[in-house]
């Protein structure tokens, strides 16, 4: 079976600084990878590269079977779910409006979007504006969107930050749902213990190099 992610000799330079160097990584179907590293080690850059939001400066590879350095890299995106540490929600809109807006762009029905909000425990707060919600609730809303999207590759940057115990279970459930159907997940975190328990394998980035 084709791996979900294959990275070969990946290097990323931004503004003259080398952020990633010679990264080799393969992620099999059904696999969960824990990615550790100190601040500035290149973890978020590696996630953004796997999300096709960043181009490699050298090297190449595939994500969900699509060449990340080719012209058609955007075709991988419907299969990629990325939750960064800064929520991509709109403060003036309610949680429901945010999820419905994202759903309308992605071609997901309103009923499905509303159901996903309910599944992450936000049904009661759905009509509250994002600017009036906590960071943890905003993260739950982003997980709801990923629940509705059902990506093949799930990339979570610091997924446990600002979450209560119930929401942490939600992250694990989301990862399990993804990997159970042949997808893969990458969890970036400083919480080694929790991620190591959830992951099949862990790797560490040191100054842009995987060790």
């Amino acid at each position: 079976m084709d791996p979900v992610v294959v990275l070969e000799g990946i290097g990323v330079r931004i503004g003259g600084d080398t952020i990633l160097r010679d990264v080799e990584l393969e992620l099999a179907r059904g696999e969960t990878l824990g990615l550790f590293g100190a601040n500035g080690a290149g973890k978020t850059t590696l996630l953004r590269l796997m999300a096709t939001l960043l181009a490699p400066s050298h090297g190449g590879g595939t994500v969900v079977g699509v060449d990340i350095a080719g012209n058609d890299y955007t075709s991988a995106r419907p299969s990629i779910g990325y939750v960064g540490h800064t929520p991509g929600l709109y403060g003036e809109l309610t949680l429901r409006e945010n999820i419905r807006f994202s759903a309308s762009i992605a071609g997901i029905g309103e009923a499905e979007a509303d159901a996903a909000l309910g599944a992450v425990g936000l049904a009661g707060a759905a009509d509250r504006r994002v600017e009036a919600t906590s960071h943890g609730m905003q993260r739950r809303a982003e997980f709801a969107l990923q629940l509705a999207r059902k990506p093949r590759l799930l990339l979570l940057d610091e997924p446990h930050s600002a979450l209560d115990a119930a929401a942490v279970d939600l992250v694990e459930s989301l990862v399990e749902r993804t990997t159970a159907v042949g997808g893969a997940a990458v969890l970036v975190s400083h919480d080694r213990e929790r991620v190591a328990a959830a992951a099949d394998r862990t790797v560490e980035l040191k100054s842009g190099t995987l060790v």
Partner: protein
Amino acid sequence: MTVSMWSQARSVARRDLIRERRRGEVLWITVPFGAIALLMFPLAIGTDARLLEQIGPGVFWVIVMLFGILISIRQAATETTAQRDALALLGLDPAAGFAGRSISAAALLFVFEVVVGAVAFVLYDIPLIGIPWLFVILPLVALGLGMLGSIAAGVVAAGHSGAGLVPFLVAPLSVPLLLAATQAFEGLRLGRPILNWVLLMVIIVLVLAVIGTLTARPLQESR
């Protein structure tokens, strides 16, 4: 499920208008300042009614251009990197993003034009001639400025040149629009045919639509 470009554009425009309705920046900040700017000219040059009537349309359009570009750039440039990333991963067609942002900015600009136009009508005693043409000219200028602001905001968001490039992009493209709009109003006032000026505005709007559509993907995907 594949979503059509126009369906995505409609969602983006709707999102922008809801955000503006709740922020109220155009309604409660930009419109009053536009009206105050119109008030400054009579205070500066005195109450020469004939002169005010002559310069009124020109002053109105200069204010619409200056404030209009601010409205449309502000409208299109309020997205954070995280929001842009999220939209890209959701599969937003860059052309749909451009169209949606332009439509919402144009709708706000149209409101701005109508309110500030009413103030100009009162302050400058502009005769109301050729009203049906206003329903062509005002939306055309609003749409042109909306698209111009969306393109400029896209350049800023792409991050290669920063905001410093915006005046060089906006000025040459907005001047023909300003010229055509002013001349069309002047033609109406003097009873001259204005079809050529309206056609010039249509051409400018079409050129901006082509530029915006063609540059939307490279600007969004400047990864």
